[in-house]
């Protein structure tokens, strides 16, 4: 933080005075993930490319796409890929790019966030203390409803913010060229790596713009989500305790990647399961 002022609120039972960054429900030192648009859309024919949402935000925003392969189920698509095509986002729209391999309809649910992929941000790491102070403050906090909704609502969807919940805290948005030598997964190709220094494996997402190498299937004006190791492409997104990196076994020279990293560690309470 540039100056010693601002606003922050801790999650229930944590003292706001010494809560770790990720135990704050929000802080003015970093942005919450903010929803600009959301909605359910039916792609009537996957053989045809189509605009999902015209957002006109003026920058390529972070987005998420959930697929509905059967009935009412929902699956996040880490590659923004469904059978039949790929989703991409530009300064003006979220679009489905058909690979013309599959016909038929498919319902999807999308989120477009007020978070540019082409503008870098990095929050300070303010508190990494090993112990938080317990504070029975569950009856206190800040909540703001959406316009037209009652502040006593029990439906969390009615709220803009609610300090009694976990809300995604953005630690960093890092965008830039992929011009580093790949690491352990691919021997060739390109890589981009970012050292976040959080000390834990955070929730993270990555997006790629292929630039002039994008044509024709990947339009050069669009950014495409990429996911974990493997998937329908040869791209690998590896999120680790201090770094996040993106590797690809291809070697286009104009690829730009963007990481969105959250102050959100894996929960310390681990449930052990054996299969079968």
């Amino acid at each position: 933080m540039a100056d010693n002022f601002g606003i922050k609120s801790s999650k229930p039972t944590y003292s706001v005075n010494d809560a770790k960054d990720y135990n704050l429900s929000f802080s003015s030192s970093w942005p919450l993930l903010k929803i600009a648009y959301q909605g359910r859309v039916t792609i009537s024919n996957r053989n045809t490319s189509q605009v999902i949402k015209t957002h006109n935000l003026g920058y390529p925003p972070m987005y998420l796409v959930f697929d509905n392969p059967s009935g009412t189920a929902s699956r996040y698509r880490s590659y923004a890929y469904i059978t039949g095509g790929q989703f991409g986002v530009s300064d003006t729209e979220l679009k489905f790019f058909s690979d013309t391999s599959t016909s038929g309809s498919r319902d999807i649910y999308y989120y477009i966030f007020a978070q540019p992929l082409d503008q870098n941000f990095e929050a300070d790491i303010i508190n990494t203390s090993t112990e938080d102070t317990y504070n029975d403050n569950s009856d206190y906090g800040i909540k703001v409803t959406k316009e037209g909704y009652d502040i006593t609502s029990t439906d969390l969807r009615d709220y803009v913010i609610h300090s009694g919940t976990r809300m995604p805290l953005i630690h960093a948005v890092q965008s830039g060229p992929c011009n580093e030598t790949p690491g352990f997964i691919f021997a060739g190709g390109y890589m981009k790596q970012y050292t976040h220094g959080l000390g834990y494996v955070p929730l993270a997402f990555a997006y790629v713009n292929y630039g002039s190498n994008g044509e024709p299937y990947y339009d050069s004006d669009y950014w495409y989500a990429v996911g974990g190791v493997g998937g329908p492409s040869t791209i690998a997104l590896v999120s680790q305790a201090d770094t996040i990196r993106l590797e690809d076994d291809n070697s286009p020279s104009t690829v730009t990647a963007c990481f969105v990293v959250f102050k959100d560690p894996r929960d310390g309470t681990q449930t052990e399961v054996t299969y079968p």
Partner: protein
Amino acid sequence: MSNWGMKVALPGYDVATATPEQCAIHSGYPSPKVKIDAAPRHYGTVRITFTGNPPSGAETTLYTVAHGYDYTPMVLASGTYANFSGQYDGTLPFEPTATFEAIIETDEDNMYIKVYYESGFGSIIGDTLTVSYQIFAENGM
């Protein structure tokens, strides 16, 4: 939208002129929310150890959480798959090897951690899959 609300600018920006992306909080732009006091918990980490191979060529449910909503919520997860050759991290769904794909899914009743397994690429007995999940109140479908 009416001429009222709340916004908090990020460091370096004037709150009077800050655009939504220059704000830490903006009441015109809601944030996704995870319920903290839900039972069973709406966030957590599960480590699954494979003592046998799942059926080949099919999806198998490994872990289920009843979320209690009457609609299909959004869920996000990251994971680590560890086998004899190393450790692979990423955001689900991901395919750490040619052997299987780790999948996260919700419907109107439950959240599911699933795996799609192909026996032709070898056994996964002794391997572990660790998944950290968050079930949001917001719609996933």
